[in-house]
């Protein structure tokens, strides 16, 4: 019996090994189809709306690497997101010739470094205490940026968007959307790779019982630092194109509470245990918000997220993915 189970599992592992390349290929194909459809619609609003949804998928997936996989709830999302955005503002002022993807890499690296640093200082705190520390981080970073004249301080900074998109032609927002799709492919491929690796098992062990994880040989502090750096880095990357998207960035919009609420709500609603959760949550909530913003009002969409979040916490704490998994078991 044992041998048959082993064989079955071996086959599954084999499929997985091949599967990751196929998975990335499928993601790229899906991204290409989505981009193609957006181009067919040919309306620049479609790009603006789709950009926001994809940005939230990236942000939610990034949050989920720390919050979902290791169970450390980070409320300081805006700190990382805005570090990415403001590093683009700085680069725009210093080296405006730098292509956007390079700016994104820099923004991500800055946010990852901040993640590493704050992680080192705060990861000895557990549960709600860690969350409060990350909340404080958001306030500290916002205060610093508000008082930093070079990036516009409280007045904000203007970033002039080129008229035409490089490489692909057309409106610049099409390029922004394409870049964001690329980021989305990167974060989803990373998240799925983590889930299936030793790193993912280590994260899950930390989430379930940290002392038992240590006793099983898991270097918990190091793994948590990896998680905060990755999570922070991707959040920074999600924020890096923002100045070009909004063209005027001030602290109030860069540190908007909406980003924090959505980045947590989307994985919670979709399901935190796997990479699919933030995608489902992002499409559902992000799409709904965009719809409501256009049809009803831009204030109501915040209410909708709140109501959805409360409903899911009570009725389906494992999110939408959890609902399906429970049926299968």
């Amino acid at each position: 019996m044992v041998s048959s189970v082993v064989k079955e599992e071996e086959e599954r592992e084999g499929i997985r090994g091949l599967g990751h390349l196929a998975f990335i290929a499928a993601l790229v194909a899906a991204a290409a189809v989505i981009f193609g459809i957006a181009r067919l619609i040919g309306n620049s609003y479609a790009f603006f709306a789709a950009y926001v949804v994809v940005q939230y998928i990236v942000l939610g997936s990034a949050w989920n690497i720390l919050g979902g996989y290791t169970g450390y709830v980070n409320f300081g999302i805006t700190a990382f997101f805005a570090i990415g955005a403001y590093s683009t503002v700085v680069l725009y002022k210093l080296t405006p010739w730098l292509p956007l993807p390079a700016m994104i890499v820099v923004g991500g690296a800055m946010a990852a470094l901040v993640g590493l640093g704050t992680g080192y200082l705060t990861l000895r705190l557990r549960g709600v205490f860690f969350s409060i520390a990350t909340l404080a981080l958001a306030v500290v970073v916002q205060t610093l940026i508000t008082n930093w004249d070079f990036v516009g301080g409280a007045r904000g900074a203007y970033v002039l968007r080129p008229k035409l998109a490089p490489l692909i032609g057309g409106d610049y927002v099409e390029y922004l959307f394409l870049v964001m799709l690329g980021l989305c492919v990167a974060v989803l491929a990373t998240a799925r790779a983590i889930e299936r690796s030793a790193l993912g098992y280590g994260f899950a062990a930390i989430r379930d019982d940290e002392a038992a994880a240590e006793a099983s040989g898991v270097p918990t502090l190091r793994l948590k630092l990896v998680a905060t750096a990755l999570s922070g880095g991707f959040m920074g990357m999600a924020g890096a194109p923002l100045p070009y998207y909004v063209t005027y960035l001030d602290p109030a919009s860069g540190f908007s509470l909406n980003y924090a609420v959505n980045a947590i709500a989307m994985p919670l609603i979709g399901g935190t245990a796997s990479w699919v959760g933030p995608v489902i949550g992002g499409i559902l909530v992000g799409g709904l918000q965009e719809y409501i913003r256009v049809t009803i009002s831009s204030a109501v969409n915040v209410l909708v997220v709140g109501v959805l979040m409360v409903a899911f916490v009570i009725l389906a704490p494992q999110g939408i993915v959890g609902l399906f998994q429970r049926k299968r078991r």
Partner: protein
Amino acid sequence: MSALLHVEGLGKRFGGFTALQYVGLEVQPGERLGLIGPNGSGKSTLVNCICGTLRNEQGSVRFAGAAVNGLTAHQRTRLGLARSFQLPRPFGSLTLVENLRIPILYAVNSRSGHSLSGPAILTRCLELLGQVGLADKAHRLPRDLTQIEMRKLELARAMAAEPKLLIADEAMAGLSHAEVDEILALLIRLNGQGVTVIMIEHIMRAVMAFSQRLAVLVAGRKIADGDPKDVVRDPEVVRAYLGE
């Protein structure tokens, strides 16, 4: 032959409360040591200090010839010092096989000359589950287990780290007569495979059947250490358990 575990002058305080005071303990390779003591005598604190879950303020712990004082718990596990927890602490969101996968990925694979990959890890996990009689529940979650199965999982996870020394912290508390025998047989079998075992237990029948040597902790001090038959007749030990 030098001792596998050498604890000397160990002291641990929690604020004003002295949990352990000048505790010394030596365990030889291959030995089966029983550790008893009334509730609150510091047994679990001693385990925590040996395994690195808690830091001792005084004294030293040497394992396999090396001082492990400054090492974290996971580093000690990697050196070959594994423990089971008094209250089972399984990884609740992982299946039984996945629970065992953690120490294999992080303890066994961290040692040089050892690296199991995908299918080999699974074979090893199933083999371990087979040893503790949980093979048919390999793909279930810990919440589906009964109390004794949970204890077995806890032991299997400690065994999965392939330790030189296993510390079983009250692995039998609350189990029935037959279940105690089952765990006892498991620990003795493990010892037969060359693993040194320290058993912390209240069930004297099991302690006497298991131990080659018995140490007694009372109020943070070791008051006896020696042949089990002599130790249980020691007047000080009798007084600690039964009063004057």
